[in-house]
């Protein structure tokens, strides 16, 4: 089991009871106290909610892990990165232009959603190759905002 970049050993001495398989509700007990938890996901990718906090757990095999690491490495060091909207909303500002050099963490686009203004920042440094949106434009989750090379 992996959480973030660390390997985590499942808790020993706790028993798990399924309360609602459809919704992934479980009860955990160590014989002294019990806690409710929720699990969602499929295959190797799970989110476990304990005391209201979502904890992402990768239940990967060795082979899956090697492939995933290779993919992450490729995205980090080579080729262009597409920056996409992580939530639907209205573009209220584009604070970079095509051709501009941006540093990791620089603000690129501001999207208003659920009454909040959310800044989209550069995942790594590079040159802005293409800007796909303009202020005033509504975007869906996953929509391309711009490309960094």
């Amino acid at each position: 089991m992996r959480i973030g970049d660390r390997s985590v050993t499942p808790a020993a001495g706790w028993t798990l009871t399924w309360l609602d398989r459809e919704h992934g509700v479980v009860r955990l007990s160590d014989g002294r106290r019990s806690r409710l938890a929720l699990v969602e996901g499929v295959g190797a990718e799970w989110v476990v909610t304990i005391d209201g906090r979502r904890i992402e757990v990768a239940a990967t095999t060795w082979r899956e892990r090697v492939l995933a690491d290779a993919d992450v490495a490729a995205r980090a060091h080579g080729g262009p990165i597409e920056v996409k909207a992580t939530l639907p909303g209205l573009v209220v500002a584009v604070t970079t232009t095509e051709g501009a050099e941006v540093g990791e963490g620089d603000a690129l686009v501001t999207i208003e959603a659920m009454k909040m203004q959310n800044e989209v920042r550069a995942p790594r440094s590079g040159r802005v190759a293409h800007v796909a949106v303009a202020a005033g434009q509504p975007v869906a989750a996953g929509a391309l905002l711009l490309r960094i090379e």
Partner: protein
Amino acid sequence: MQPPFRRLLVANRGEIALRVMRACGELGIETVAVYSDADAGALHVAAADRAERIGPPAAAESYLSADAILAAADRAGAEAIHPGYGFLSENADFARAVVAAGLTFVGPPAATLAALGDKLAARRSAAGAGVPIVPGLTVPLDDGEAALDLADVGFPALLKAAAGGGGRGMRRVDRPEDVAPALAAARREAGAAFGDATIYLERLLAPARHVEVQLLGDRHGNLAVLGERDCSVQRRHQKLVEESPAPGLTAAQRDALADSARRVAGTVQFDNAATVEFLLDGGGNHYFLEMNTRLQVEHGVTELVTGLDLVAWQIRVAAGERLPEAVLHAEPRGHAIEVRLYAEDPHHDFRPVPGSVGAWRMPGGPGVRVDAGVGADTMLPSEYDPLLAKLLVHDVDRPAAVARLRRALDETLIGGVQTDLSFLHWLVDEPGFVAGAYDTDLVADRWADGPPVSAEDEALAALVAAEARLAGISSSPGRADAPAARPWAEAARRAALRERPGAPRR
């Protein structure tokens, strides 16, 4: 009892629309829901006797469109309109248009909304009535004279929108020379949010507590002062937790607050429900902030300690009823706490989280009240406020109420999206909160983005995930349209983003 109205339209959505409809159901009033295209399947539509579409998802074209709502009221034959909170609830033009259409507006008179909606004018009126106000300007801040007469204000200070509310248009400035640059941003935000870019400046009182007084008046000159609420647990100047009575107030401080609230109400022709907000400094002195001329999100806290139904009374006084002695002299009993359940990630600046609710388990039993706007597998439209539900507890005193809250949180489960439940679990064990010794800096000072996940919780999460994989569980087995699968996709996307070295981790 004869129903005060035959049919009432609720010009709102989510939990507050359901709350108003429950009051109507008990009063024998037929209810009309309104909905945008994003809400066609929402709970408030299902709860109404009748529902009217009012436009596309964008609030400006639906829940904020007075024309669309008045047309819906006309089609449905409604006699009265309850605006809830937010949206058009404090809009004087809307209140006027409702009355002009021959309907009853369930709220204070339009002139009162106008007078108190201008936060600067309200500051002047309150000061004139002998109520202490937060030190600062009582006139708008001009672009030119920004650095002019600010010496008396004192720094740090807050830029605030005269038409403001909900923390929008607000900017902290630490020195006089920071005012000019921050002013531009504040103006832009205020203009976009309220259509009015007027900005003024107040000293930032900190540490301070946010304490407000509930008022309820009828159209015959009677005014009930229904105790105070402490709403100091805030993020982004927006409330997360409210309680009544406010911890640690002396009887004299409580009386002084009530007296000030009465004075502020006396500056206008007031009836229906409103709340006067104050800041309390470390010495227990209070300063008028603003008066909200509508039902507050947190009205249920006052309902629990007084035993009164504030929404039912809003409707009854709007129909001309007199407040009886039992309301005018209601005595609070016990202690009540409300926590708001938001689709927000408290580990990332309480950022709203889009998606769908998956599992939905709310607590029950003694002294627990839940006002929910969603249920299992409800889609959360990104256009609106991410409030999911309010969880309220009531018990004989504050320690018992905190224990009850802890128990209720332990029974609560929400799937699909990160919520502020993890913050609330932390809060009920936070020594300052447990002792009742906290102020508006609590979230910023003591929470930040929260503690890291404990080793035990990580090991338990690993156990649960391993068992889930073994058991062949998937997010929502056997359901083709599986709304609960979507949050997972969202989570996977976020996880992928985070795995990329160098991705920002706010």
